[in-house]
């Protein structure tokens, strides 16, 4: 069971959270986006093998969404942030 670092509540067991997918996808401006840009945002993913910025939702806690940077191969987590913030660079090199 992963330990998910909620920026508001601290580290909590994975079972308190719901995974909500790629955090790098942003909804384009509907006024200016082309159809292609618009549909890309709905359907296409980078799906990286390695570091992945993703959204988690603290459903059984504070009910906040937040970003987590996790390695999709090792499951090592190296930071989290509010959805509107950038995740701080991983300076320690130690995710634990």
């Amino acid at each position, binding site marked *: *069971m*992963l330990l998910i670092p909620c920026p508001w509540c601290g580290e909590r067991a*994975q*079972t308190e959270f*719901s*995974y909500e*997918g*790629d955090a790098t996808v942003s909804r384009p401006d509907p006024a200016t986006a082309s*159809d*292609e840009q618009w*549909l*890309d945002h*709905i*359907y*296409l*993913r*980078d*799906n990286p*093998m390695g570091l*992945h910025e*993703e959204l988690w939702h603290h459903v059984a806690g504070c009910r906040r969404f937040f970003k987590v940077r*996790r390695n*999709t*191969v*090792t*499951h090592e987590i190296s930071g989290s942030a509010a959805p509107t913030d950038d995740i701080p660079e991983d300076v320690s090199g130690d995710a634990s």
Partner: protein
Amino acid sequence: MRYSIFTLARNALSHHQNWPKAWRSPDPKPEYDVIIIGGGGHGLATAYYLAKLHGITNVAVVEKGWLGGGNTGRNTTIVRSNYGQPGNTEFYEHSVRLWEGLSQDLNYNVMFSQRGVINLAHSDGQIDAFQRRGNAMRLNGIDAVYMTPAEIKARVPLLDISRNTRFPIMGGLCQPRGGVARHDAVAWGFARGADARGVDIIQNCRVTGIDVAGGRVTGIQTSRGAIKAKKIGIAVAGHSGQVAAMAGLRLPIESHVLQAMVSEPMKPCLDTVVTSGAAHMYVSQSDKGELVFGGDLDFYNSYAQRGNMPRIEEVTQALVTMFPAFRRARMMRTWGGIMDMSMDGSPIICKTDIDGFYINGGWCYGGFKATPGSGHVFAHTIANDAPHRCNERFTLDRFFKGTVIDEAGAGPTPKAH
């Protein structure tokens, strides 16, 4: 050497010293007509049918590890065609029909056991949905039977059909021709068949790049050097996004881990494949006697072939809820496989905007049962540069046109399919 009881007996006399290799281990040639990236069941089946049905034998299957080492050998081995949406219905039935003659066609016993697949319904809404699906199957000439709880109990004696459980069983949809097969044998059988027809299966060869020039593919870069090719097909479900990216494509796919579990071997105690959509659990008993079961994804993107405890507990809870006697049976082993989760839950088998580059992926939970069908229509697509009738709808552009095939009605949330 043809396999049969006679060759087995003859070889027994010579202490099995004279069996030939099931496949060669060739070095890659500088160039092939077709390269299939991915030596799992789908890639090997594609090569087999290219050679057998389309006369294209100058083919290499390039595999980063050992053949059949991905999802082909990691799944819960269920074979069925109980789909309700146009596109899926005919494709999976096409595959089941190939399964029905596969052992004989390959001269390799893949142990396709048509012991029936029962989907359990736990609510009125599910009964409705299952009947719609069953009727869609029947309209397409696919066998489907609706069963009452008592009929299910007669077939699955250890199942709890009482009301004294959280989600009582209210009925079920059975596909009698569905069943299970021996997963490794499928990869090995296709490998042996393809090899015998001249296909080079190149194991331990990691693809590091796909060469594209002037809008068409020219070859691949690998850990064993560059190999040229006129056409390249990828069949690397779990890693489709990674490999397609080498050709500059982004796909409507996320990679997730799905766990599978087996119990210790026991004497026959479950003769049918039983699945529950509501609890998302599926179980069968292998010929060796193990209960083979699984459930949902772990629900976060993953390329690690290992899973996590919460899902194991949930799946086990569903299993022992439906089969109270199994609480004293023991979990022997769990493992994970990496799924290509597409944005509508249905596969992608099509040509791409790059000439000579073809994609086969997005199998979600369903890749194993599709193996022969997938190889068959993918070979057709590559050979003819045009889809087979059964994969016409499995295009990439369906996501952009809106002609998605959304069996679960869950929308573009890959983990929900």
